[in-house]
């Protein structure tokens, strides 16, 4: 580099403030875009209005259903996602990379597409529809459909977290554990799981939050039947047409849960 390099000359001192100012304005714009709606949820209501909103008869069943289904889908995700993540973390090759990508797909898939896909797989005229209907187990528009939709969209969050945690476990540790007499299951439960606990917990929390907030795929695959398939997000959508206060109260509940989870994840991740 020689000083003769800058042909255009240095930018004028008078304009030096422009760069940080422009960055500041742009950053502030996004900050407002995010903060303002969140603030509006609080600022446009009063405790009394909130309480009024929560007394709508569809609130109780929606909260209960959401708790039940999101817990069930979390259980499914943990039970099936943990072994899947372990296999994915231990294998290499094109086929396994393809499988891993496929498992990640629901994260970026539009929820409407997920809904159509679920209907085409498990719907009455879908791929497995005949089999399921024949066995008396029609899934669409039941609670099971809610759980399936939630699992479909939420599982990738946990699986990805688990895969990346499992990949970080030193292979030598697994081998040494086995030379010390530990069977494969014992190595998994006594070495792999404890070493991965922090990441698995935050992955599970993300996954649960995603299941709790699931809307689009549930609406298309499970419907919006009060007391049967109407989860909290669907109740908010329904309430919007009748009583804004109810929608707002429910929204604040979900916001509080989401915020608490995020804080817990961040605090847990720092330890």
């Amino acid at each position, binding site marked *: 580099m020689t000083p003769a390099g800058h042909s255009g000359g240095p930018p004028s001192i008078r304009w030096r403030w422009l760069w940080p100012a422009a960055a500041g304005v742009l950053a502030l714009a996004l900050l407002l875009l995010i903060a303002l709606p969140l603030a509006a949820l609080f600022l446009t209501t009063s405790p009394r209005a909130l309480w009024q909103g929560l007394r709508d008869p569809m609130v109780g069943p929606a909260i209960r259903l959401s708790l039940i289904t999101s817990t069930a889908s979390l259980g499914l995700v943990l039970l099936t996602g943990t072994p899947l993540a372990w296999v994915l973390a231990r294998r290499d090759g094109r086929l396994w990379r393809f499988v891993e990508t496929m498992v990640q797909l629901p994260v970026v898939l539009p929820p409407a597409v997920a809904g159509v896909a679920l209907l085409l797989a498990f719907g009455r005229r879908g791929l497995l529809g005949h089999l399921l209907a024949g066995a008396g187990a029609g899934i669409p528009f039941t609670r099971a459909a809610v759980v399936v939709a939630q699992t479909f969209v939420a599982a990738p969050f946990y699986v990805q977290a688990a895969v990346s945690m499992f990949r970080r476990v*030193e292979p030598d*540790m697994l*081998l040494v554990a086995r*030379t*010390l*007499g530990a*069977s494969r299951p014992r190595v998994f439960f006594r*070495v792999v799981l*404890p070493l991965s606990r922090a990441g698995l917990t935050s992955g599970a929390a993300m996954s649960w939050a995603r299941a709790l907030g699931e809307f689009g795929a549930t609406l298309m695959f499970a419907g919006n039947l009060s007391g049967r398939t109407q989860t909290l997000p669907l109740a908010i959508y329904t309430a919007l047409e009748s009583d804004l206060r109810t929608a707002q109260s429910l929204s604040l509940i979900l916001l509080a849960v989401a915020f608490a989870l995020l804080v817990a994840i961040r605090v847990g991740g720092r330890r």
Partner: protein
Amino acid sequence: MSSGALAVELTGQIGALPLALSMEARGSAGPVVIVGPNGAGKTSALMLIVGALKPRSGRIVLDGEALFDGARGVDVPVEQRRIGFLPQRYALFPHLDVLGNVMFGVGAAPRAARERRARAALRDVGVEELVGRRIATLSGGEAQRVALARALARGPRALLLDEPLAALDAGIRREVRAFLAAHLRTLGIPTVIVTHDRADAEAFAGQMLVLEQGRVVQQGSLAQLEAQPATLFTRQFVDHHGG
């Protein structure tokens, strides 16, 4: 096959590298030290013996028991071979403290008995005072002794060490090497050590084994290797002093 002997006669395929290993380690005769250039298959040889990799053919016999026998379809799983293994970076479990690490290997027994044995194993290698320490707080030398105690607490029938001094600062290597060499002599079990350091070979070796491109190119004492190096690598290895 007499007691206290590890006899290995096998072939394997490690990626693109075909490997043929023939060696015997005796508890009474001091460690077998495997040397060889990078990529010669030294660590893979240990992996085959410990059971982490499957040989293509051949036999591994320890104290008269076949751990692997390709012809008879015998392949004892890793956790039943009772071969202690010390990897290069020791692989202590960071979620357990020192005592927890050593107790992990002790096997099925009431907790008090397992703890007694773990403490005894730590005492044997001179680090009983580290009992409650977290793994992250150990120095390299301490970590190595804890890993050794963990491997020995179970009473292994043979011991494999992969570059046991490579992870240590040069400053403490000499002291740790002296301790390790003396301690291994007291164990009296077949021991195999992989190293790239001539000083290790001097301190540990009863018998040297030179591995190049997956084949044993020379065996014998360090003095024999010095007198008649069979390959360029062997010549360079025996000529390299210091380290």
